[in-house]
C-alpha cells in the first residue's frame, strides 16, 4: 500500500506543476503576447479563446489536484506511521498552505471562466487575472524545500517561487504555441499570425530565461557551495544534467528566435513554418525532461548538508572508466544467498554477488544496445535490407531484462510479480523499462516496414525513447546511502540525458527534410551508441 501512495503523491505533484504552468504561463501569454485589448481581429478571437480556456482549465485542475494532494499526503502519513495523521497534520504548514493554494487556484479559475471568458479584450480583466495569480504563485513558497530550512529561509522560498514562475511562463507559452500551431492547421485565417506570435514570444522567452537564471544561480550556490558538491553528489549531478538540458532547450529557442527574426526583417518565412513548429515540439520534450529532472532534484539532500557523503573525483571518473565488460554472471543461488545479509538493517553485509549480478545485467544490456546501434546505422544503406530488422534487438533485450532485472522476484525469485511490482518503486521502474524495451522493438519494427509515408507510427519510437530517458532521470535507489546512490545514479542520469537527445534527434529526423533531418538522425544514433558504451563500462559500487 505504501508503494501505491508514493506513486499517487508523485503523480499529483507532477500534475500540480504542469497545471500551474498552464494557468500562470497562459495569463502571461495573454498579457504580454496577445494583448487583446490593444488590437482585436476576428481571426484572433479563436487564439484568445484558447488562451482563456487553458487558464481556467489549468486553474480548476490545479485546485482539484492540490486538494487531492493534501488528502493523499495525509493518507501516506497514515500508511507509513500506521495511525491517523489528524489532528497533528491539520497544524502543519503543508496542510494549511495546500488548502490556501486550492482556494487561490479556484478563484483564478472561476474568474477566468465566469468573467475573463466573456470580456477577453478588456485590459481591466487581464489585470485582475494578473493580480489573482500573485497569491497563487506566492502560496507555493510554503510547499517547497526552502520552507523547511533554517538559514536564508525566506530568500530560498522566494527564489524557488521565482524559479517556478520562470519555468511556468516558458512552459505555458510553449503550450500556447503548440495549441496555436494545431489551430493553424484547421484554421488558415490565423496562419499569418504564427510568425507574429513567435516574434512577440522572443522577448517573453528571454525574460523567462533571465528569471530562471537569476533565481537558479543563488539557489544552486546556497545548496551546493563547492565543486565536489556539484560533481560528487546526486543533487549536483542532477543539476549538471539539468544545465545540459537547459543548454539544449536554449539552442532550440535560439533557432526559433533567429527564424522569427529573419521572417520579420527580410520576409524569409519558410523556416518559421517548415522547421520552427518541429523545433518547438522537440523543445517540449526537453522542457518536460527539465521538469522531471527538477522533481528528481528535489528528492536529493543538498550537498551542503552531506559533506561526509560526497564522492571523490576519482570515484566519479572510475564510474565511466573504460573496461572489459563482464560476460559471466554469478549463479542465482549465490545471489539469493547473499540477499538477506545485504538487505538487513543491523549487521548489513555487502554482497559481491549482487554487485556482479548487476554489472553483468548492465554490461550485457550495453552489448545488446551496441549491436542494435551498429545495425541501425547499417540500415541507412539501402543495400542492407536485413538491417531494417534492428528494432527486434529491443525485443531480445526486453526478454533478457525480464529474467535478469530483479532476481529476487518472479519469475526467478520467491517474491510474487504483483507484490513486488506495486510495493517497490525501483522494481516497478525496472518492469516499466522492460515493457518499454519490448514496446520499442515491436512498434519500430512495424514502423520500418510501412510503405505509407504519411504513417504516424514512426513517431511512437521517439516518444517511447523520451519516456525511457525520463525514467532514467528519475531512477531512484532510495534504500542506499547517499554516496552509493549517487554512484549508481550518475550513470543512469547520463544515459537519461543521451536518451532525450536520441528522442529529439529521431523526432526531428522524421519531421524535418534533409539535410537537417538526416543530421538529426545521425545525432540520434550517436546518442544511442554512447548509451551502449556507458552501459558496457558500467560498474556498480559494492553495497
Amino acid at each position, binding site marked *: 500500500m505504501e508503494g501505491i501512495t508514493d506513486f499517487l503523491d508523485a503523480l499529483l505533484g507532477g500534475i500540480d506543476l504542469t497545471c500551474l504552468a498552464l494557468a500562470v504561463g497562459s495569463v502571461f501569454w495573454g498579457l504580454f503576447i496577445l494583448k487583446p485589448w490593444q488590437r482585436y481581429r476576428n481571426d484572433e478571437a479563436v487564439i484568445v479563446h484558447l488562451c482563456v480556456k487553458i487558464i481556467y482549465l489549468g486553474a480548476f485542475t490545479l485546485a482539484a489536484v492540490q486538494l487531492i494532494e493534501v488528502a493523499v499526503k495525509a493518507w501516506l502519513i497514515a500508511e507509513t506511521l500506521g495511525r491517523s495523521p489528524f489532528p497533528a497534520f491539520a497544524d502543519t504548514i503543508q496542510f494549511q498552505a495546500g488548502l490556501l493554494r486550492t482556494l487561490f487556484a479556484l478563484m483564478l479559475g472561476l474568474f477566468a471562466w465566469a468573467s475573463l471568458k466573456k470580456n477577453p479584450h478588456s485590459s481591466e480583466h487581464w489585470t485582475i487575472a494578473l493580480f489573482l495569480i500573485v497569491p497563487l504563485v506566492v502560496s507555493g513558497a510554503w510547499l517547497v524545500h526552502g520552507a523547511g*530550512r533554517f538559514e536564508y529561509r525566506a530568500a530560498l522560498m522566494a527564489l524557488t517561487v521565482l524559479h517556478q514562475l520562470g519555468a511556468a511562463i516558458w512552459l505555458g507559452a510553449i503550450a500556447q504555441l503548440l495549441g496555436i500551431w494545431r489551430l493553424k492547421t484547421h484554421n488558415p485565417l490565423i496562419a499569418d499570425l504564427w510568425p507574429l506570435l513567435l516574434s512577440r514570444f522572443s522577448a517573453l522567452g528571454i525574460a523567462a530565461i533571465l528569471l530562471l537564471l537569476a533565481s537558479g544561480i543563488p539557489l544552486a550556490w546556497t545548496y551546493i557551495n563547492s565543486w565536489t558538491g556539484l560533481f560528487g553528489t546526486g543533487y549536483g549531478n542532477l543539476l549538471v544534467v539539468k544545465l545540459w538540458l537547459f543548454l539544449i532547450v536554449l539552442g532550440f529557442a535560439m533557432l526559433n528566435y533567429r527564424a522569427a527574426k529573419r521572417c520579420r526583417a527580410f520576409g524569409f518565412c519558410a523556416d518559421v513554418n517548415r522547421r520552427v513548429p518541429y523545433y518547438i515540439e522537440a523543445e517540449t520534450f526537453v522542457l518536460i525532461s527539465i521538469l522531471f529532472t527538477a522533481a528528481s532534484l528535489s528528492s536529493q*539532500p543538498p550537498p551542503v548538508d552531506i559533506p561526509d557523503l560526497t564522492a571523490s573525483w576519482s570515484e566519479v571518473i572510475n564510474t565511466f572508466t573504460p573496461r572489459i565488460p563482464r560476460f559471466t554472471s554469478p549463479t542465482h543461488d549465490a545471489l539469493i544467498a547473499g540477499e538477506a545479509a545485504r538487505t538487513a538493517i543491523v549487521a548489513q553485509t555487502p554482497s559481491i554477488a549482487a554487485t556482479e549480478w548487476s554489472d553483468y545485467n548492465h554490461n550485457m544490456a550495453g552489448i545488446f544496445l551496441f549491436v542494435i546501434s551498429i545495425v541501425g546505422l547499417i540500415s541507412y544503406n539501402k543495400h542492407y535490407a536485413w538491417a531494417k530488422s534492428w528494432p527486434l534487438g529491443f525485443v531480445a533485450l526486453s526478454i533478457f531484462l525480464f529474467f535478469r532485472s530483479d532476481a529476487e522476484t518472479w519469475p526467478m525469485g520467491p517474491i510474487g510479480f504483483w507484490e513486488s511490482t506495486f510495493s517497490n518503486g525501483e522494481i516497478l521502474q525496472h518492469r516499466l523499462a522492460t515493457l518499454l524495451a519490448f514496446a520499442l522493438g515491436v512498434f519500430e519494427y512495424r514502423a520500418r516496414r510501412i510503405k505509407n509515408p504519411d504513417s504516424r507510427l514512426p513517431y511512437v519510437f521517439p516518444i517511447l525513447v523520451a519516456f525511457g530517458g525520463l525514467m532514467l532521470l528519475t531512477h531512484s535507489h532510495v534504500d542506499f546511502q547517499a554516496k552509493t546512490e549517487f554512484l549508481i545514479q550518475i550513470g543512469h542520469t547520463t544515459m537519461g540525458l543521451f536518451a532525450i537527445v536520441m528522442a529529439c534527434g529521431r523526432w526531428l529526423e522524421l519531421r524535418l527534410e534533409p539535410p537537417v533531418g538526416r543530421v538529426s538522425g545521425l545525432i540520434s544514433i550517436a546518442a544511442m551508441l554512447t548509451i551502449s558504451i556507458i552501459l558496457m563500462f558500467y560498474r556498480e559500487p559494492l553495497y
Partner: protein
Amino acid sequence: MLKNTLQQLFSFHCDDRYFSRWPTKRPQQCIRILLQCICLTLLLASSGPLFAHAVVTESSLRAHPVQPRTKTSVLLTFNSGIELALSQVFLVSKGDIHQPVTVKQGRKPGQIIVELPSLDPGEYALRYKVFAADGHLTEDVIHFSVSEPEGD
C-alpha cells in the same frame, strides 16, 4: 512466424491501418492515448522524491557513544524542520527486531531527542520516519554499536 505474432500483438492495440490514414481521428486518438499512458506511468514511476530529502546533519552518537546498560538520550539534528507529531523512531537490534522509542523535541528547530533504553553491547540501528516541514516524509537508518568501555 515471429513477424505474424508481433503483428497480431501490435494490431490488438493500435492497428497500422489507423495510422496510415492520417489525419483521420483514430490514429490521433491512438497517439494521444499513448502519450497519456506514458505521462501517467512516468509520473507513477517517478516515486523517488518522497523518501530522500531530510537528512541528519549531526548526531550525538559520534561524540557521546552509547554506554552499555545505561539509558541514553541521543540528539539528532536534521537539515530541515521536523513535525514531531508525525514522526516515528525505532530502535533496531540484531535480527532486525524493531522497538519504538520515545522522541522529544530538541532545543533548536530540526533537533529531536531519542530516548534509548538500557542496551547490551552489540550492533544496533535507529530507523526513523520523519515528516519534514517541506512536506517530505523521510525514512533512513543510523547505525551504531554499543561496546564495553576500554580497560574493562
